[in-house]
């Protein structure tokens, strides 16, 4: 027995995939061409699995701002936000986020993972309770484990189970943190947020919503599910990322509680890492402004989302429960998933392959994410590539 033995199951799966010549988890985008196109496995593909929801990674204004920042402020800050790593841009972005969400204050982190993991691990501590949706992102689970709090789950979007857990907590709800997501990353479905808020009002507790996949997509101004559901006043903490709709990297937390400014100095994932590079902050600030000024991006995103959802549904794929910019097709076996994923690449479309335990059930998923930057012609090609999977020959060989 040595320290490497526990990795053997991973090595076995990797070996099996290499034997059949497919290794989706080592995919290299050999050349990125645009927000929606790249070269993968030597093949020019439409990128339909990038979370680049508003298509801002190649926006000329964002690129110009990043270029100007790198020329004027250098390539990196080389230090913590709490030491030398807070530049004027970091502080300005926090003001702009707080203004956008109408909150007291905001904290900018160097990664979305660090925001969700950090807030989960810091807000709750020993003696507190975290009550999270079972399909929560790994960064939320990691934070919960690090918190030292008692961790309870409720079945995904199951309000009956959430209510039972709250009822059983009794007075302990006063130091309970409920966690859910705006749009769940694997299946693209939303939390029943109005119902969660109603239970929180009835039983007590605090509510943290991760809007990583819903920022820019939901709500009249793109603030996410809390805005769409009309419950922003009841959400205590909102976390999110810059790496999806805003086309960069980094994360944030906003809150109506003034205590967030004190919590900042207890957040180890904020303190013990270098702050985001000036160019990242610069492009994120422009992307946030564009997101506010150009609601037509959201309209186009949803047109593409509905088109893909209805298209795959019409072909007979079992897909997620509601139209969303994340559209996932269930497949019954890993072999089928691998065969279909490879066939899509060969037909010029890249999507994400999700295998258990990363998927929320025992099924494998072909997970697509659409972008406002996908043209109608690209959407035609994505749907045509999926249609080839339904041809009898491929369907038979994949079984």
């Amino acid at each position, binding site marked *: 027995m040595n320290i490497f033995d526990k990795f053997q199951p991973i090595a076995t799966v990797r070996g099996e995939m290499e034997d059949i010549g497919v290794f989706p988890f080592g995919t290299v985008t050999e050349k990125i061409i645009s927000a929606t196109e790249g070269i993968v496995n030597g093949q020019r593909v439409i990128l339909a699995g990038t979370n680049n929801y508003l298509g801002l990674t190649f926006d000329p204004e964002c690129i110009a701002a990043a270029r100007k920042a790198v020329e004027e402020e250098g390539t990196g800050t080389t230090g913590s936000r709490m030491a030398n790593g807070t530049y004027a841009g970091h502080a300005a972005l926090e003001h702009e986020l707080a203004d956008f969400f109408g909150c007291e204050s905001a904290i900018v982190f160097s990664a979305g993972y660090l925001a969700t993991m950090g807030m989960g691990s810091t807000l709750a501590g020993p003696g507190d309770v975290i009550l999270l949706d079972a399909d929560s992102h790994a960064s939320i689970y990691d934070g919960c484990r690090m918190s030292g709090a008692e*961790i*309870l789950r409720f079945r995904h979007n199951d309000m009956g189970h959430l209510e*039972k857990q709250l009822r*059983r907590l*009794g007075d302990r709800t006063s130091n309970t943190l409920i966690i859910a997501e705006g749009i769940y990353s694997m299946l693209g479905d939303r939390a029943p947020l109005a119902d969660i808020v109603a239970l929180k009002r009835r039983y007590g507790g605090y509510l943290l919503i991760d809007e990583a996949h819903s920022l820019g997509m939901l709500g009249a101004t793109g603030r996410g599910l809390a805005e769409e559901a009309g419950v922003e006043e009841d959400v205590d903490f909102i976390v999110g990322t810059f790496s999806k709709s805003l086309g960069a990297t980094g994360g944030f937390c906003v809150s109506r509680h003034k205590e967030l400014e004190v919590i900042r100095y207890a957040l180890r994932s904020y303190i013990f890492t270098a702050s985001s590079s000036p160019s990242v902050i610069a492009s994120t600030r422009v992307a946030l402004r564009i997101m506010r000024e150009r609601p037509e991006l959201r309209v186009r995103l949803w047109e593409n989302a509905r088109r893909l959802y209805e298209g795959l549904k019409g072909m007979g794929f079992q897909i997620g429960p509601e139209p969303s910019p994340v559209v996932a097709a269930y497949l019954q076996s890993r072999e089928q998933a691998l065969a279909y994923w490879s066939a899509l690449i060969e037909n010029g479309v890249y999507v994400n392959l999700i295998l*258990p335990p990363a998927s929320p059930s025992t099924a494998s998923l072909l997970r697509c994410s659409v972008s406002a930057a996908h043209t109608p012609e690209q959407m035609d090609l994505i749907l045509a590539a999926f249609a080839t999977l339904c041809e009898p020959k491929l369907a038979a060989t994949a079984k």
Partner: protein
Amino acid sequence: MAAYEDCLARICEILDPFTKQGHIIQEDTELVAELGLSSLQVMEMIERLEDDFDVSIPLNILPEVRSVRDLGVQLERLTNSQP
């Protein structure tokens, strides 16, 4: 409140579909090493026990649970400690 024996009996009922033919679940049967339960199956079992005993089972107990006995002991403790 539930007695250890009641907890054990229900755990064995839930685990029965995971046993190979002719194999009988014992108190020292290990959930992952012997029955091969995946993390998803462990969580489904926890949720069913929560429903059956009207008790909340924190994830924090899982590192201490290897065998059927370990789970039974934790379940008995939780049913006795929660109102």
